[in-house]
């Protein structure tokens, strides 16, 4: 398995999107820093510069990791999963022999690695900005939280990846699917009070938002504590989150393995 993952890394050599993923980690922290520095409401809301930074980092988590990451993952997944089909290397791998399940698992592992890299980079960039503009507290918690969030979001995005693999269409089509999925998730987050609990829990972003906001409230200043109280009955425990996401991930991986096996013929 480790060999397969190693080989997945080798296959990425000279591919530009790896750099792009890291660059995407800069996308939100920098403008958000600027906003937080100059937006009077935020400045008025927070009593210390550390609180401003906390809010800024939360927005990075919300936009960068919850909104952008599923899109990035979908695209990276398309690149990873289409590579054997596009390059006609499936037959060479199958005759090694590498099983299609192992191949799918290696690629899913790559997705988790990517999201971790992205989340760590996001937080580090935020911290960098924070050190310049505000005061920074609790780096350890923020790193840990962002990694967890990244892993959860990735697990929750695997159904999307399964859909991308199922259609196995062009890259454009896959990207559209990802954007659609992201928007769906965000709309879900906005209207989650009105949705049945089952649906909220099946969409990774609302699910992790609920849990994440509550968790963060216990560790740092949070902007919309009152909002949160309205959802008190809906908030899942971390164990529930892990359980749901693991279930989704396992089912998605099983479907992908099946699809990959059939495609291989």
């Amino acid at each position, binding site marked *: 398995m480790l*060999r397969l993952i190693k*080989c997945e890394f*080798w296959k990425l050599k000279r591919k530009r999107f790896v750099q792009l993923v890291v660059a995407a980690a800069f996308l939100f922290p920098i403008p958000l820093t600027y906003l937080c520095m100059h937006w009077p409401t935020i400045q008025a809301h927070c009593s210390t510069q550390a609180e401003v930074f906390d809010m800024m980092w939360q927005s990075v988590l919300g936009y960068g990791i919850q909104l952008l990451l599923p899109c990035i993952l979908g695209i990276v997944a398309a690149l990873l999963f289409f590579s054997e089909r596009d390059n006609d290397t499936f037959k*060479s791998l199958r*005759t*090694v*022999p590498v099983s299609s399940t192992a191949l799918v698992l290696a690629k899913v592992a790559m997705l988790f690695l990517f999201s971790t890299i992205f989340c760590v980079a996001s937080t580090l960039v935020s911290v960098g900005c924070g050190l310049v503009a505000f005061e920074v507290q609790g780096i350890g918690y923020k790193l840990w939280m962002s990694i967890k969030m990244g892993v959860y979001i990735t697990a929750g995005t695997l159904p999307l990846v399964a859909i991308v693999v199922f259609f196995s269409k062009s890259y454009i089509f896959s990207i559209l699917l990802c954007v659609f999925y992201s928007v769906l998730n965000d709309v879900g987050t906005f209207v989650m009070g009105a949705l049945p609990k089952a649906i909220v829990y099946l969409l990774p972003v609302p699910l992790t938002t609920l849990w994440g906001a509550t968790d963060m409230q216990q560790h740092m200043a949070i902007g919309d504590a009152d909002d949160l109280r309205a959802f008190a009955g809906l908030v899942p425990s971390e164990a529930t989150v892990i359980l749901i996401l693991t279930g989704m991930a396992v089912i998605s991986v099983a479907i992908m393995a099946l699809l990959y096996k059939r495609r291989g*013929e």
Partner: protein
Amino acid sequence: MNEMIVETTNLTKCYGAQKSVEALNIHVRRGRIYGLLGRNGAGKTTTMKMLLGLTKATAGEAKIFGKPIGTSEREILPHVGSLIESPGFYPNLTGTENLKIFAELRRIKKKDAIQNALELVGLPYRDKKLYAQYSLGMKQRLAIALAVMHNPDLLILDEPINGLDPIGIAEVRAFIRELCDAQGKTILISSHILPEIALLADDIGIIDKGRLLEEESLAALEEKNGKYIRFLVSDAAKAAQVLLQTFKTQNFKVENNHTLRLLDTTLPVAAINRCFVENGIDVSDAHVFEDTLEDYFKKVTGGVGIA
């Protein structure tokens, strides 16, 4: 040594209603080069894919090294090298990097395995050129290098000389021969080019429309298609009578009213000629023909008839 390395029994593959391979029984013996010969769409690639477990057989079974391919894939495949249809590699990597990936997956310990394989096919080691920039022949060479890199006992090569120039073809032919003769490898090779197979193979299987029409050693095939004498006569039926009565042979064929083909070439042509004339049969031509394998191939696969 008559040990079977590849053996299929009634191997069949259907794509929908179409039978791409039907009740195929091929036998590849240890240390031999087996040429699978067939026209486009005959089912060569499909057969090889089934042997490698790349596609499931609809019916029948295939054994490699005496083990059924369906259940013993993990024991069989590490000892098999293969090249199926066009080569497939990662375009953003160099040839060496591509091979490195597969060497890693195959757990090849030998450090110079990649270098040796590349040298064998005449590609530079640690070249900077990306696979995307390779020429057709270079891609094919890299695919052959991949097939032989892990020193397999059995090689399954689907049209390995595709896209190679004449010198490349001769090189590949020489090293396939060498692999077989010097290292005792067993090789299953497919082609639609008969002279290529005739130059290389020890045994030949002719496949057409998914069915195996002939399976024979090259020597036997050549013998079978040896010389014959074609007579153009005024009355072929009468000439046949003469041959039967005077020369006591049945080893001939009447092709039409005026053409007779004598397969027994040991008989004296001049005497037969004289005898025909004495019996009032005009002989306008008597000619020794040698059927080439090519003609034979065309004949059995229902291609354009022989001259």
